[in-house]
């Protein structure tokens, strides 16, 4: 059977036969019906499936024989149940589990990215905010905010409308600061 002339469905059906054998019960459940339909339309795949059946019969026979030899393992089952220890304390196990979950959460890239972003934002927010000294104030309100911060070290109070402050107020303040 040449792969050159196979459609993609036939190719996949062949791959499934090669990997999982001739028995549909061993095929991936979600592809079972498609594979059966495809085989039904292809004599070459039917022949290939028949060739694979012999190995599957050997496997099934060996599987059944193995289970028969092992039996029901009743004695071992009883031994396991008899020697079952008390489950470890839930608090310790919960702590371990919490630690593992936290670690898993931290190493997940998307959360790590989010966490880093939040941390960066928090640092920015905590930095003392001052008007940029690189760009001199262009308007009266910018000058007011810049000067007020420069002199008092605080933001301009919201209640202090810049319109009510005059240039003289700032000059007075600067003079006070300089001890003048």
């Amino acid at each position, binding site marked *: 059977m040449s792969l050159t002339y196979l459609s993609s469905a036939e190719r996949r059906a062949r*791959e499934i036969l090669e*990997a*999982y054998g001739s028995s549909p019960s061993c095929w*991936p459940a979600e592809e079972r019906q498609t594979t059966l339909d495809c085989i039904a339309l292809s004599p070459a795949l039917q022949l290939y499936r028949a060739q694979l059946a012999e*190995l599957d019969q050997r496997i099934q026979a060996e599987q059944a024989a193995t289970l028969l030899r*092992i039996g029901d393992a009743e004695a071992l089952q009883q031994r*396991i149940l008899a020697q*079952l220890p008390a489950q470890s304390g839930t608090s310790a196990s919960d702590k371990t589990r919490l630690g593992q979950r936290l670690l898993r959460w931290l190493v997940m890239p998307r959360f790590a990215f989010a966490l880093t972003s939040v941390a960066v934002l928090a640092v920015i927010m905590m930095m003392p905010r001052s008007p940029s000294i690189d760009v001199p104030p262009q308007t009266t309100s910018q000058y007011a905010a810049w000067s007020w911060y420069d002199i008092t070290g605080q933001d301009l109070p919201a209640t202090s409308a810049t319109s009510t402050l005059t240039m003289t107020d700032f000059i007075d303040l600067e003079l006070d600061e300089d001890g003048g």
Partner: protein
Amino acid sequence: MAITLRRNPLSNNDCVMDPSAIETQQLRQIAQGDKHAFAQLLSAYLPSLLGFIKRYVKEPAQAEDIAQETFLRVWQRAGDWQPREHSPRSWIYRIAYNLCIDLIRKQKPTTDALDELIAPDSPESEVIEQNQHQHLRTAIQSLPERQRTALYLCAFQGLSNKEAASIMSLGVDALESLLARARRSLRNYFASLEGEHHESNLSFLR
């Protein structure tokens, strides 16, 4: 809390509840310390899991120890089971598989442990049948470890491709590749065996 399986009144065999859902429920109950749920899970899994372990471990006592250790871990770590990562079945098999691999790494490779389970004084028909099984086991034993495990999990233990891939920490494509190569090797082995048999018959007739 006991687990009750709801059965379809029209059928004596068909279980209405999905087995995986039952096992999920059982594992959650085990995590709460429910011994009854543990006993049910143990009863359902032990024979097949022991069969799986015995393919790796030569000594029956060692195989039983690994089975016991597997279920001990199930009992103690049921709370750590992550449903998103593994189905209950693949989680249990993964524990057993890792224990087997650890033991194999400590020991030198041995022949298939199941070979030793064949009774030496069986009737002739059984001997022929056992020889056929023996051929298959020999052929499987000659496969690389990953191919063998993929075949054990999918063809012998009946696990789904996703479960087997998850146990072996593989993608499904890689698992399918291992399975295909394993099956091809086995078919070649039996083809050469039949060739030899045919040759010996011809030489007898000459």
